């Protein structure tokens, strides 16, 4: 039950993109077409879950026991960068077809602040789900939370890419063309997602 709350909360209520603004740059960058948006979402899902798992363990079993909590930022970004490289190399060898689908998005993910943001939030913030007591997440919850967050990011991206494909066919005033109208559309989409607030 608790996991269900986490999933609903991470995907809809606190959508990482539409409510927390993490990962805006790649969101604007790759949401031109539905196919690229899907590819990027899958890559983010993969890396975000893995990165949260690794950084959670690193923080709990290495940084905190040694009293090195202040190295969190620097350690996490290095781990994520190394992880992305490793995933890229492994995918290339093990599953060339998957590499073809995700490969070009992987290098972009290192600087996607959503990945680092979730990793940091999970180890520093308290969460409450479904009216339960607030607490730090345990390993299982952290992994479910990060995966659901990535799904929410993907959902927002795919929805928006669909809208943007239609926008491209419409006659938009000159100064609104491109990114400005995209922002206004995201604003309206975010307004719609606000309707979910308070359900869990």
């Amino acid at each position, binding site marked *: 039950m608790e996991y269900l709350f986490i999933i609903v909360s991470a995907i809809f209520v606190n959508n990482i993109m539409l409510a927390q603004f993490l990962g805006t740059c790649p969101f604007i960058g790759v949401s031109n077409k539905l196919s690229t948006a899907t590819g990027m979402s899958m890559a983010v899902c993969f890396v975000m879950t893995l990165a949260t798992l690794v950084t959670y363990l690193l923080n709990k079993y290495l940084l905190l026991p040694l009293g090195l909590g*202040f*190295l969190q930022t620097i350690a996490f970004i290095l781990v994520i960068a190394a992880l992305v490289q490793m995933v890229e190399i492994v995918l290339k060898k093990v599953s060339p077809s998957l590499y073809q689908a995700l490969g070009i998005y992987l290098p972009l993910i290192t600087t996607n602040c959503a990945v680092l943001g979730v990793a940091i939030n999970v180890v520093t913030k308290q969460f409450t789900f479904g009216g339960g007591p607030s607490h730090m997440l345990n390993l299982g919850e952290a992994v479910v939370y990060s995966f659901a967050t990535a799904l929410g990011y993907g959902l927002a991206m795919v929805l928006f890419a669909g809208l943007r494909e239609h926008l491209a066919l419409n006659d938009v005033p000159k100064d609104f063309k491109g990114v400005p109208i995209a922002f206004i559309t995201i604003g309206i989409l975010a307004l719609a997602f606000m309707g979910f607030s308070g359900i869990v």
Partner: protein
Amino acid sequence: MAAKSNLLNMVLCLTLTCLACSAVLGGIYAMTKEPIDQTNAKILSDSIKAVLPEGGELSGAKTEGDLEYYEYNAGGAVTAYAVKSTTSGFGGPLTLMVGVLPDGTVYNTSVLSHTETPGLGAKCTTDPVFTEQWKNFGPEKILAVKKDHGDVDAITASTITSRAYTEAVKQAVDLVKSLAKEDGNE
């Protein structure tokens, strides 16, 4: 321009950079540790002072169940408690510092952190009608919002936040009541 890469200078360069950076950080950490601890201690003691009457000696942090609390001692007896109480509000955790006298009277409350909606639930920190009612909230009054047949005036259009706030205060009062009973038996 940049030097040509080979295995040796790549490894050397990365190692040196990491060493230099961690040395700098270690130094800065050692320098700022004391100010950070002082700042945190000051934030804590200010938040306690805000909800309790002056006087007596403040104890260190004690815990009972999930709750963290502090005691004011004067002449060997506890004169007041400050309880850090967290519940889940509309947007996420809502953490209060609640000052309670041994008879269960709420002396005052203050919000330590919250993620409520700006302009709605976030009024729990600013709305005078809501915040003032907690001063000397007697033990005879019922800790529940009026909608739930209690004596707490809820914030307009923010029942969930008001309920969470009330629940946090109730947790604190219940803790103090059980603590005071133990002290009385001793």
